[in-house]
């Protein structure tokens, strides 16, 4: 499972273990699965798609002003604003 955290300046919005997250990177969407190589990217304003399981429908979270970091401890998305 991939450890996924979504953080805004005001609070820690989400800290979960999920199957996959699709991130709208500023140079194209990318999916992050468990064991992804270390990676940093800015994010354009759009929806994060969170797949809890392999087959289920994704949950979408709108974010603006985002930044994604993939490290040894999973995916961390820093966003200035989060909707929903």
């Amino acid at each position, binding site marked *: 499972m991939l450890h996924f955290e979504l953080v805004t*300046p005001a609070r820690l919005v989400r800290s979960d273990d999920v199957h996959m997250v699709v991130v709208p990177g500023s140079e194209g969407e990318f999916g992050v699965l468990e064991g992804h190589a270390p990676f940093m990217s800015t994010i354009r304003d759009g929806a994060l798609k969170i797949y809890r399981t392999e087959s289920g429908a994704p949950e979408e979270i709108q974010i603006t002003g985002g930044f994604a970091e993939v490290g040894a401890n999973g995916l961390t998305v820093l966003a200035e604003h989060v909707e929903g």
Partner: protein
Amino acid sequence: MASLKELKGRINSVKSTQKITKAKQMVAAAKLRKAQAAAEAARPYAARLAEVMGSLAGKITVSENSPKLLAGTGSDQVHLLVVANSDKGLAGAFNSNIVKAAKLKAQELLAQGKTVRFYLVGRKGRAPIRRDYAKSIVAQFDTTEVREPGYAEAERIADELVTLYEKGGFDVAHLFYSRFRSALLQEPTAQQIIPVPAPAGGSGASGAAVVEYEPDEEEILAALLPRYLRTQIFGALLENSASEQGASMTAMDNATRNAGELINKLTIQYNRSRQAAITTELIEIIAGAEAL
């Protein structure tokens, strides 16, 4: 000697003052808890961002092409002092301590022949700074219509500062606020915010692995700098509001205690006067009875 009626009136008025200070103290205690929780909640974002900035800054050499927010304007003639105060008083020396720190810095800079400008956040800093530096105030940021300064305010302040910076309004900006240590102790703090001081390199954590960047490091850094600035200001606003409540709680606790002491003193005085009046009356009666 004040008359009995006067004393009674004073005791009552001090009692109602005590009620007010007591209420304000309890309100401040409740708000302090909330402000501390908010400061706590903001920590993960700030910590992560600082980490990322640190590891990025370690990879980039600052040159002329670096973003202006990081490299500076190449001069340090004009200093902008951003002074964050609260909108309400009843917080002891909270606001005057911040203003004092800012004025001290202003004097120091002026002695060095620099130009000093002020950017004021909150209502309580305006009057004391206008008294000495009326012409240097470039802007005031009003926070009276919001209950708790939040990220939206930090964003607006940061954007105004960046616009001003890009227009050449100043070269270096310092932020003055009160750091929250405990309910009893708040430290007025000065911090340079523009140009952004490079956070201490986080080479330990991310240096081990090869990290890929998209787009490249410099573009990410350029995108993150304004955000980092906002986070710094946001953090300062949160610290400030926790400090304000802490200072207010302490000040009101003292005021309540002083009012209690005053009530005791006045009550003793009241009782003595009453006793004296009764004794006089008795003597008069006895003397009257003996005369018959």
